[in-house]
């Protein structure tokens, strides 16, 4: 809109640029801090938790938060605080596990589809489209319902639902890279597809894959908690956050809010951490967003 002749100017004054970058980093930083904290809770749960997560004291059921039970106790006498800490293990495991599987499988499918092209590509992409036609939570629900509720099945179901995202992402990258001048020239000279994949496509894709993964991790936790809440994931009485909310459901009416409050807050905080990281990264990657 301005004189096309002007040297390409960024839209900010120097001060504003610095501030904006700092703020963007602050967002990502905040997210990172949260996720790291949660991770630390998960890793060091056995050391930090004052009580074992699956051992309830029948004499101390339904206690409100106090000094001896920071988050109170539930109907079986479990210490909510300890269970929230141990729950971090389960939920982070699900998040990382599901995302890792989806990533590997999805990228593999996408790469194969992009390289082999034509019929294979068409078929694979149609299948991905069909998978994407399902609302993701509902498809995950179906898979776990079929396989039976358990932790591994939950991870598998969530991973399954997330495969198309990675497949599409990588396929698009493969296609773009393949069309690039220098790659076409190199291929004519004998550059193998494998080298194209590992030397050109993958390094280029790392950034969007990473961003996507942080967002998927957050969503995986929500799905896992939701499914477990419904009874389709980790089962009662394991200390998964969604399960804990389910266990505390009936006590809300009688005023024992802490049984559901703290696990829910844990979910919200953790997912927010992942989303902040992903959001901050997206800002850095796509200048149009600011």
């Amino acid at each position, binding site marked *: *809109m*301005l*004189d*096309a*002749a*002007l*040297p390409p*100017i*960024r*839209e*900010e*004054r*120097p001060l504003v*640029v610095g501030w904006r970058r700092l703020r963007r980093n602050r967002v990502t930083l905040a997210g990172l801090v949260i996720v790291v904290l949660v991770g630390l809770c998960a890793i060091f749960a056995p050391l930090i938790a004052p009580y074992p997560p699956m051992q309830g004291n029948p004499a101390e059921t339904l206690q409100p938060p106090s000094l001896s039970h920071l988050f109170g106790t539930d109907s079986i006498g479990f210490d909510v605080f300890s269970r929230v800490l141990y729950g971090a293990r389960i939920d982070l495991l699900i998040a990382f596990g599901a995302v890792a599987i989806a990533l590997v499988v999805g990228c593999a499918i996408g790469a194969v589809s992009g390289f082999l092209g034509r019929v294979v590509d068409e078929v694979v992409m149609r299948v991905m489209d069909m998978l994407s036609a399902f609302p993701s939570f509902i498809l995950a629900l179906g898979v776990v319902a079929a396989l039976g509720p358990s932790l591994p099945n939950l991870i598998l179901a969530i991973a399954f639902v997330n495969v198309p995202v990675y497949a599409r992402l990588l396929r698009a990258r493969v296609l773009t890279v393949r069309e690039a001048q220098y790659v076409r020239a190199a291929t004519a000279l004998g550059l193998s597809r494998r080298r194209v994949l590992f030397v050109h496509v993958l390094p280029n894709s790392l950034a969007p894959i990473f961003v996507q993964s942080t967002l998927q991790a957050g969503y995986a936790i929500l799905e896992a908690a939701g499914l477990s809440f419904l009874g389709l994931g980790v089962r009662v009485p394991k200390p998964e956050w969604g399960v804990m909310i389910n266990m505390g459901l009936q006590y809300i009416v009688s005023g024992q809010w802490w049984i559901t409050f703290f696990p829910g807050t844990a979910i919200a905080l953790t997912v927010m951490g992942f989303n902040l990281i992903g959001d901050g990264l997206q800002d850095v990657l796509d200048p149009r967003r600011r």
Partner: protein
Amino acid sequence: MTAEPLLEVRGLATWFETPRGTAKVLDGLDLEIGRGEILGLVGESGSGKSVTAYSIARLVRPPGRVVGGEVRLEGRDLLALSEKQMRRVRGKEISMIFQDPRGFLDPVARVGSVLQEIYRTHEGGSRREAKTRALELLRAVGLPAPERVYRAYPHELSGGMAQRAMIALALACSPKLLIADEPTTALDVTIQIQIVRLLASLRDRFGLTILLITHNLSVVAEVCDRVAVMYAGEIVETAPAHEIFSQPRHPYTVGLLGARPRISAVEERLSDIRGRVADLHDLPTGCRFHPRCFLGDERCRLEAPTLRRLDAAHESRCHYAEQLGEDAA
């Protein structure tokens, strides 16, 4: 020029804040346009022509800012107005058309509806009145099927038709001054001449004053009364059109003219003037043009020339303007 100029720009300064520092794109620009005149503003890319246009209409957006000067339209300083007052000026007293007409029209709005909107914003009136006026305007700019254009979306029009539509839009409220920012650059060569002649005829019919910004010298030769040559944010020469071509009095103008290929199909300004456009962050001392100038000497490096009046209608910003005049004649 004996009559009061319609537009008087004095000391216009527009600066841009960039990560590399402050680019003083315009830093004391002077310009005058007489009533009913077509003034051509020419120069290479990067000279600041468009910024001048946007500064006059006060459309400069951050990181740019008009930091000083006066822009007097019929004596009234536009830079002193509030934004609200300026909004009434835009479209009604000063109007603008742009380089890529289809790109500058709202893609999801029909041409007619925008025409109506602009007309009614400034002049009020009913929808029917506005529609009548709109069709009138579309006819006046030479569109053979005004009804169809009225109902059309921008992408349905050819480049030439879209530019005519844009002109109609600009003239909807009978402005005094029309600023045309490279109106022909994005068009086919044959259409270019048509559009430019249209502008001239509109000037004749409606007493319009036009500031025509272009790097296309054929266009200048076709319709401009006077020409102002711009380099690195400064006006380096002004003269009546025929004099610019026959008696250029600034080395830069000489270079521009010399570099002009004989074929009139000029799309890109070709410059075999040595060197590159001055970097606005890093201007040379003295005369801004001296590093590329075939005349330049020590004096040019140390002392920045001012825009001097050489005779009744001719000004030049060069220490050696008179010598050039002798050579060229």
